[in-house]
């Protein structure tokens, strides 16, 4: 039997990798992939705790998280296509139209 805290530690490690990706990369596509990593870390935690409490509620929430990930990927990738058409760049720090 694997202790639940191992799963939570793995989830926080994956979450940290995702946060590093969001904060340090310039490519918008890789920032979106890092967000997928973060959502997966959340899913690991939800499933581990649902197993710990012997209830499927956590797994149902994980399904909702995956639904959100699908919606976010669809809208985010549509935004990236529109952005690339207008600005010819995928670098997050070159998109500064609203900057003073």
């Amino acid at each position, binding site marked *: 039997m*694997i202790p639940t805290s191992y799963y939570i530690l793995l989830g926080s490690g994956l979450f*940290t990798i995702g946060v590093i990706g969001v904060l340090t990369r310039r490519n918008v596509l890789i920032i979106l992939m890092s967000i997928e990593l973060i959502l997966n870390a959340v899913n690991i935690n939800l499933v581990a705790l649902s197993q710990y409490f012997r209830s499927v509620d956590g797994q149902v929430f994980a399904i909702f998280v995956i639904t959100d990930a699908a919606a976010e990927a669809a809208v985010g990738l549509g935004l990236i296509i529109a952005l690339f058409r207008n600005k010819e760049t995928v670098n997050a720090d070159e998109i500064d139209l609203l900057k003073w």
Partner: protein
Amino acid sequence: MLNLIAFGILSAAALVAGVMVITRRNAIHSIIWLIVTLFAVGGIFLLQHAEFLFAVQIILYVGGIMVLFLFVVMLVNLDVALKQAQFSRQWQLGLFTALLVFAQLGYVIYKIGAGLSLPAQPAGPEPAHNTQAIGQALYQTYMLPVEIASLLLLVAMVGAVIMAKRKFE
């Protein structure tokens, strides 16, 4: 014991592939490594007897979302971005902040970990059929959230079509 070995292999694969995702120069390589991470996370779901979620992970994430990502990466011309700097100017600050967050999380897990790693058999036996239990929870207890999620998907579909349209008229 066998479970622990499988957990070690899967979590190492997930973490190494996650690091590869955020360090690759080419976005297509990042996607391939992200698929490796998703498979490893799916294996961890399987290890916890969440068979339905494992199937959803493979079919929806790897089969659906990742193919969408691949389409967009191949649609967007990345040849220019390949030759530019890959990390933003404040990357040291970002790395430091993220590691600080991880240190805090690790401290809290270390503090409460002793309570969590008790033999995990509190309330009742494990449901026999994972898919059946999830189906009953989804369509009885979580009826309204399922409807809201379906509405969210509809809105996302319409939004993506409008966003990717060539001209607003």
